[in-house]
């Protein structure tokens, strides 16, 4: 166990340095002359986060955008990387898969999450039922990959199956299926894993939103003779619209960036690659940073409309305040 000592020391040193930096900032803020005190405070409190974000996000984003227009040896090559992306069959498959992911995952997770939240609302054992569905949130994508291999496992026909799904196919007299190898449906089986992870998040947020819908409104609808579906459609849904938008956008963004599931379950083979995975493969495995950067840029452009929409909503909220 001697290896723990050195690691612990590194952690302690890092925390000490951090504490010292923060301490100095606080000291400077407190000692600043009154005339500039407010400005020094703003600068001091904001500077560490601002510098880190500039170096870690803003500058790299700009660098990557320019890198996208260079070839493997770093020379400018115009739009070649983008031409490659939109003409090569493999790259096109990658783009197509990403679109399928970003449409299906938010839709399915949100619908399942919403249905579940409605079903268990005020049910007995609500907390336990919630925990069961929320639990995958805490599991890494890598762990999820291993968990789902047990579900999708395949063995040749005639042998006892070890995967849950093929066990059922066997019991129903069907031939076993290679869930992760057969394109194009294997992409859907990977998508199910992401839905499994994200549904809990949607459920928790939507469940809280449903509880926030005024009881009087639901009661009034019921007195007007609305049945359960009509109550849901005309009272609950409008009441939780804001939460629905947040859930959909959050899951969409998470899905666009999805990488680990594909990486661990198929490594992007058998036509299952997505932009985020392909970007990693090109930039760090194939020695084509230009192509990787171009893919990253396309990913960013795909997220951009969501950013703009959310920023608008946010601005409106702040104006109300």
């Amino acid at each position, binding site marked *: 166990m001697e*290896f*723990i000592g050195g690691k612990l020391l*590194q952690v302690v040193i*890092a*925390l000490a340095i951090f504490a010292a930096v923060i301490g100095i900032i606080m000291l400077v*803020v*407190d000692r600043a002359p009154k005339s500039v005190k407010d400005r020094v*405070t703003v600068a001091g*409190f*904001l500077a*560490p*986060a601002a510098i*880190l*974000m500039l170096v*870690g*996000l803003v*500058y*790299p*984003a700009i660098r*990557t955008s320019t890198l996208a227009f260079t070839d493997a040896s770093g020379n400018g090559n115009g739009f070649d990387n983008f031409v490659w992306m939109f003409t090569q069959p493999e790259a096109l498959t990658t783009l197509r898969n990403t679109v399928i992911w970003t449409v299906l995952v938010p839709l399915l997770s949100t619908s399942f999450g919403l*249905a*579940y939240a*409605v*079903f*268990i609302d005020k049910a007995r054992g609500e907390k336990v039922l919630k925990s*069961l569905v*929320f*639990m*995958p949130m*805490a*599991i*890494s994508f*890598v*762990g999820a*990959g*291993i*968990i789902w*291999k*047990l*579900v999708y496992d395949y063995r040749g026909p005639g042998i006892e199956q070890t995967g849950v799904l093929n*066990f059922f196919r066997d019991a129903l007299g069907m031939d076993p299926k290679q869930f992760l190898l057969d394109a194009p449906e294997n992409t859907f089986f990977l998508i199910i894993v992401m839905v499994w992870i994200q549904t*809990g998040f949607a459920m928790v947020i939507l469940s*809280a*939103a449903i509880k926030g819908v005024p*009881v009087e409104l639901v009661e009034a609808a019921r007195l007007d003779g609305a049945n359960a579906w009509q109550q849901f459609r005309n009272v609950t849904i409008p009441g939780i*619209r*804001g*939460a*629905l938008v*947040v859930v959909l956008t959050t899951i969409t*963004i998470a899905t666009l*960036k999805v*990488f680990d599931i594909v990486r661990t379950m198929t*490594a992007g083979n058998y036509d299952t690659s997505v932009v985020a995975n392909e970007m*990693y493969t090109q930039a*760090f495995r194939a020695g084509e940073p230009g192509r990787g950067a171009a*893919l990253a840029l396309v990913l960013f452009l795909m997220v951009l409309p969501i*950013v703009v929409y959310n*920023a608008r909503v946010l601005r409106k*909220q702040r104006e109300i305040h």
Partner: protein
Amino acid sequence: MTATPAPKEASKATRQRPGSDPTEDAQPIMRRVKTKLTSKWATAAAIVIAVVWSVPTFGLFVTSFRPAAKQVGPRSNGWWNAFVDWDFTFKNYTDVLTPAGSQSANLSQYFVNSIAIVIPVTIFVLVLASMAAYVFAWGKFKGRDALFIFVFALQIIPLQMALIPLLQFFTQTLHLPAGSYAQLWIAHTMFGLPLGIFLLHNFISEIPGEVIEAARVDGAGHSTIFWRIILPLSVPALASLAIFQFLWVWNDLLVALVFSGGTADVAPITQRLAEISGTRGARDYLNPAAAFVSIIIPLLVFFGLQRYFVRGLLSGGLKG
């Protein structure tokens, strides 16, 4: 959240009870029966979803205790057979955790790495994000709102875009040593800040202004207000961000792949797990136990602190 509607309903019921006549009562009963019936189907559907959602993890749990011969090779069979053919062992776990042997997964070292990565990052993000969030909420400077929206937008830059230039910056400009935690700490902190600032800002900006005014009148400076008033009042939001950040960094693979160098000195458990599960081999039977070792800490954190996690999420912009 649950507490608010309940008392309202109760008070309504007590209000109605006195003057009501029997005919009026009959209808609600009918209605209650009807909703009970429909809710029975809903409950059944909910239980089906809950079972489907839990079975995969449960399968992993059972598999991790099954002997090697039952997991791989010609005599193996599905994990559900474990209940018929009662045969469990702890050997997978001892194999996975012992550092000896070149073939061993040697997870204990990577496990320590994960802890050494996640604790400093969580602290860094919490302190830096709350400082920035405080200034965004209560500081007065030109362009504050525009800058805040810019920070919000940063959340959405795909990490993939940042990796290549950041790696170059770390190694060529800063000359950070490869094979130390420094690159991972800094990278994770950078990536965690936008969301952290956003979540905390929403909470901190809702602290009543009178509290802060009162402290200022008493002569408290910004740093005193921040440490003595803002941080203690923000504990629910801080707790939820801490859990969020903890799970995120613990479960990360991408940042680790790029910045850790992949050695047992630095790489986190997810990276090791991805390595051993990616190579098909004779020791595949160790994967479930290894996976369970890697998810046990996040599961504990998650179940232990679930309440704060949810509350903090909702206190943020997520309430819509």
